[in-house]
C-alpha cells in the first residue's frame, strides 16, 4: 500500500553523505513526522493514527530559505537502538548521513519520552532542532510548555507546531539555521539499556519540572471514552461487531453489489464493451455475426444481503463478446490475422472485454470502498485496540496482538503488509506473519472476487470457505510456531489516542492507494489475459491440461481444462479465480457447485500475487521465500483435494 511513496530503500545500497544539505526527521512513533514531512516537501506519504505507519525511509526535497534541502522521513523509535527492523532503518539513516541536521519531532503532550530521545540523540553531537508537535492537543488536555525555557535548557531551537494545520512550519524553516548540538550532559559510556534509560528519564524529569505546567484535565472526552469502550471485554466485542457489519455493508453490499453491478452491467456491459466490439469490427473486419445477450439491471440500495430498496430497473439487449462464423466460410491468411487481433482485443479472453472490464468494473469499486473504510479505521486509532481483543488468539499462533496490524493491512494489500512485518520484534514472528499473510489473507480485490464467486454457488459455501480459511490460518500458525520453536515476544503495545479522522487525509490516502493499485494490478491483468490468449491460440492449454491431469483431475476431481486457471493463479490468485468463474457460470459451464468450491478453496491458498513473492524475498531473504513458496503451493493442492474427497464422502 505504501509503494506510492516512491521510497528509496537506503538500507540496501547505503549512499553515504551526498554533500547536499540534509534534514532527518526523527522521533517517537505516531507524533506526526510524516505529516510534517508532507508539509515540508509537498510529497504525500502515508499518515495513520497508530505507531508503526512508516517502516521505510521516504525522501523528498524542500525549499528552505532559498536552498534545496533533502528531507528524510524515518520510522518512529522509542530509543536509538536497532531492536526491530524499522528501528534499524532509523539508526542506519543516522549513521549513513553523518552531516545531516536532526529534526526531532515530539508529541508536546508526551515530552518526557521525547526528551529521552533528545538526550540519546545529543550523544551524536549533531546540529539538532526540537519540534513540539500537536500543540492543539496539548492545549486541549490542559498542559503548557515553556518553549523558550526549554530551548535555553537544551541549547537547541524548540519550535511549537500543529502539523496537521500547517501551523509553525514557517517558524521551523527559519529556525533550522540556528540548529546546534544540544548542551546537555550525556552519558554515552553506559550504553543503551535500562540503566541509561532511567538516568535519562530522571534528567528529563528535571527539565520538565522547569518547563511543563499542567492544570487538571476536565472530564474524559467522548473520543477517550470511545477508546476505552473499544477495548472493554464486552463493549469491545459490540464495537467490533458494529465495525465489521458496517465494513461488510459498505464494501460487500454497496461496493461489491450496487457499484459493481452498475459498472459491470451498465457501463461495461451496455456501453464500453459493445462499443469496443463495434470499433474492432470496423477496424478489423472479417465475416462473422456477433451474438447478443439480454442485460438485466436493477439499481438498489442494499440493506441486508437479501433485501434492499429497488430504485430503478431496466432491461436491454446488448452485444456479447462471442460470435459465430457462417458455416462453410473459409478465412484467408490476412483475415485470420485480423480475426486474431480482434479476438485479442474484444474476444472472450480479450483485453477490453475481460482484463480491463474486470479490473475497472469489479476490482475498482471493491478496492475503493474498502480503502475508504480502511483509512477511516486507520485514522481513528481503532486498529491497535483491536490488537488487544485478539491477543489471545494470536498467542496460539506464536504471535502476539501486535501482529494484527500487518494482518489487517494485508486485507488492503499483502505485498505492503509483508513490509509492515518490520514492526515485529523477532524473526520468528516475521516469518510466521508473512507465511499467514500469503496463505490466508486475501487482499481486498481478491476477497471481493473470491467471495462473490463462492457466493454465486450458495451462501453456505461462502461461510464454509471463510471458516475453513480462518481454521487453516490458526492451525498453520500454531504448527509453524511449534516447529520453529523459540520464544514469541512480549506484548507491549502503545495505544494512540482515538482521533476524529481528517477527511482530507482519508481521501488523499484512498486516492494514493487506488492509483498505486491500478498501476500494479491492471498491467498484471493484461499480462495474464495475453498469456491466456496466446496459450489458447497455440493450443498449449491442452498440453498443460494433460500434464496437470493427475493433479487436477485425479486429486482435485476437476475437469482438465481448469489447469490453466491454476497456471494463471500463480500471477494473481484472484485472476485464476475469475477464470474459474468463467468455467463455472460462463456460456460453457463445465463445473458443478462442488467443483467450484474445491477449485476456489485451492486457489485461495495460493500466493496472493507475484509481487508478494518478490517482497518476501526482499524482506526475509531468498531462502525463506523459497521455503514459503514450496510450502504454499503443495499445501493449497492438498487442502483442495481433501475438500474434494471429504465432500464427496459425505455427499455434500
Amino acid at each position, binding site marked *: 500500500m505504501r509503494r506510492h511513496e516512491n521510497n528509496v530503500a537506503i538500507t540496501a545500497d547505503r549512499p553515504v553523505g551526498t554533500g547536499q544539505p540534509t534534514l532527518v526527521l526523527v522521533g517517537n512513533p505516531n507524533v506526526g513526522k510524516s505529516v510534517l514531512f508532507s508539509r515540508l516537501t509537498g510529497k504525500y506519504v502515508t499518515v495513520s493514527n497508530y505507531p508503526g505507519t512508516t517502516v521505510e525511509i521516504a525522501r523528498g526535497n524542500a525549499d528552505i530559505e532559498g536552498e534545496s534541502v533533502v528531507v528524510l522521513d524515518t520510522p518512529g523509535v522509542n530509543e536509538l537502538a536497532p531492536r526491530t527492523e524499522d528501528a534499524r532503518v532509523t539508526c542506519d539513516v543516522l549513521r549513513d548521513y553523518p552531516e545531516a541536521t536532526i529534526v526531532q519531532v515530539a*508529541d508536546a503532550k*508526551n515530552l518526557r519520552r521525547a526528551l529521552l530521545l533528545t538526550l540519546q540523540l545529543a550523544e551524536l553531537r549533531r546540529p539538532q532542532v526540537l519540534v513540539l508537535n500537536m500543540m492543539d492537543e496539548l492545549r486541549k488536555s490542559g498542559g503548557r510548555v515553556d518553549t523558550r525555557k526549554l530551548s535555553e535548557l537544551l541549547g537547541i531551537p524548540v519550535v511549537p507546531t500543529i502539523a496537521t494545520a500547517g501551523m509553525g512550519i514557517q517558524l521551523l524553516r527559519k529556525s533550522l539555521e540556528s540548529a546546534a548540538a544540544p548542551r546537555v550532559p550525556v552519558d554515552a559510556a553506559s*550504553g543503551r*539499556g535500562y540503566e*541509561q534509560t532511567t538516568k535519562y528519564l530522571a534528567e528529563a524529569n528535571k527539565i520538565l519540572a522547569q518547563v511543563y505546567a499542567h492544570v487538571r484535565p476536565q472530564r474524559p472526552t467522548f473520543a477517550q471514552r470511545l477508546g*476505552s469502550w473499544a*477495548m472493554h*471485554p464486552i463493549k469491545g466485542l459490540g464495537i467490533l461487531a458494529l465495525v465489521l457489519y458496517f465494513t461488510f455493508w459498505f464494501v460487500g453490499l454497496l461496493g461489491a453489489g450496487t457499484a459493481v453491478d452498475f459498472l459491470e452491467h451498465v457501463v461495461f456491459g451496455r456501453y464500453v464493451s459493445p462499443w469496443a466490439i463495434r470499433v474492432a469490427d470496423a477496424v478489423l473486419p472479417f465475416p462473422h455475426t456477433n451474438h447478443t445477450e439480454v442485460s438485466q439491471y436493477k439499481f438498489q440500495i442494499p440493506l441486508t444481503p437479501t433485501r434492499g430498496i429497488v430504485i430503478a430497473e431496466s432491461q436491454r439487449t446488448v452485444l456479447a463478446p462471442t460470435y459465430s462464423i457462417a458455416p462453410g466460410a473459409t478465412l484467408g491468411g490476412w483475415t485470420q490475422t485480423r480475426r486474431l487481433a480482434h479476438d485479442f482485443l474484444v474476444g472472450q479472453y480479450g483485453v477490453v472485454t475481460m482484463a480491463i472490464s474486470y479490473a475497472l468494473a469489479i476490482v475498482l469499486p471493491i478496492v475503493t470502498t474498502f480503502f475508504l473504510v480502511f483509512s477511516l479505521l486507520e485514522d481513528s486509532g481503532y486498529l491497535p485496540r483491536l490488537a488487544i481483543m485478539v491477543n489471545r488468539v494470536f498467542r496460539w499462533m506464536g504471535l502476539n496482538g501486535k501482529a494484527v496490524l500487518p494482518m489487517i493491512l494485508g486485507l488492503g494489500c499483502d505485498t505492503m503488509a509483508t513490509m509492515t512485518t518490520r514492526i515485529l520484534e523477532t524473526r520468528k514472528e516475521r516469518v510466521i506473519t508473512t507465511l499467514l499473510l500469503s496463505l490466508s489473507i486475501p487482499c481486498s480485490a481478491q476477497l471481493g472476487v473470491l467471495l462473490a464467486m463462492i457466493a454465486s454457488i450458495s451462501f453456505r459455501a461462502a461461510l464454509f470457505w471463510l471458516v475453513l480459511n480462518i481454521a487453516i490460518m490458526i492451525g498453520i500458525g500454531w504448527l509453524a510456531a511449534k516447529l520453529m520453536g523459540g520464544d*514469541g515476544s512480549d506484548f507491549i503495545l502503545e*495505544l494512540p489516542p482515538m482521533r476524529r479522522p481528517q477527511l482530507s487525509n482519508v481521501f488523499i490516502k484512498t486516492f494514493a492507494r487506488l492509483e498505486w493499485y491500478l498501476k500494479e494490478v491492471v498491467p498484471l491483468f493484461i499480462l495474464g489475459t495475453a498469456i491466456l490468449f496466446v496459450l489458447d491460440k497455440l493450443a498449449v492449454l491442452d498440453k498443460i491440461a494433460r500434464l496437470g491431469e493427475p493433479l487436477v483431475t485425479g486429486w482435485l476431481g476437476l475437469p482438465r481444462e481448469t489447469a490453466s486457471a491454476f497456471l494463471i493463479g500463480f500471477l494473481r490468485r484472484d485472476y485464476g479465480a475469475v477464470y474459474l468463474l468463467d468455467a463455472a457460470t460462463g456460456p460453457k459451464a463445465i463445473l458443478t457447485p462442488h467443483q467450484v468450491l474445491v477449485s476456489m478453496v485451492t486457489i485461495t491458498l495460493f500466493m496472493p500475487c507475484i509481487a508478494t513473492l518478490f517482497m518476501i524475498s526482499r524482506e526475509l531473504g531468498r531462502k525463506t521465500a523459497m521455503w514459503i513458496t514450496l510450502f504454499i503451493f503443495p499445501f493449497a493442492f492438498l487442502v483442495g483435494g481433501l475438500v474434494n474427497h471429504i465432500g464427496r464422502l459425505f455427499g455434500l
Partner: protein
Amino acid sequence: MSTKRAEYLDCPLCGFEFEKHDTACAHGCPLGRFCKLVCCPNCQYEFPDRPESIGLLQRLFHRPKPPVARPDAIPLTELDEGESSELVCLNCEHPHRRNSLAVYGLVPGSRVVLQQKRPAYVVRVGETELALEAAIACEILVRRV
C-alpha cells in the same frame, strides 16, 4: 507461550543488550560455527560468549528468582481497575524486557494508572497508554497511592 527463552547477552563495552542470535558477526565469518566470539550489533565489539560448561552448570543450578518480596510493593495485577499507583520497581526476568518498559516511561517513581485488566492490561503513564499482557504486568511492582 513457549517456555524456551531467547538468550540475551550484555555487551561488556557499551552495555547494549541483544539477543544472542542477533550477533553482528553471525553472518559471513569464515570461522562459521566454530567461532566462539560474539559481536555486539551496537558497537561491533567482539567478546567471547560465556563458555559452554559454565552455561550448562548455570542451567543446572539455576533456580528461578523468587519474586522480590517487598513489604511495600504489590504487583500491578492486584490493583483495581481505575486505581492509581506509584511504580516501585520492575522485577523482570531479563534486562531486555525491563528496558522495553522503561522507554515508555515505566521507571521507578512514575505514576501508573491501571485502566483495565481484561482482555489485556492497559496502563496509563503520563500521556502514554500501554497494553500489556498479564505475564508482564505482574512483574511491575507498585505501591498504592
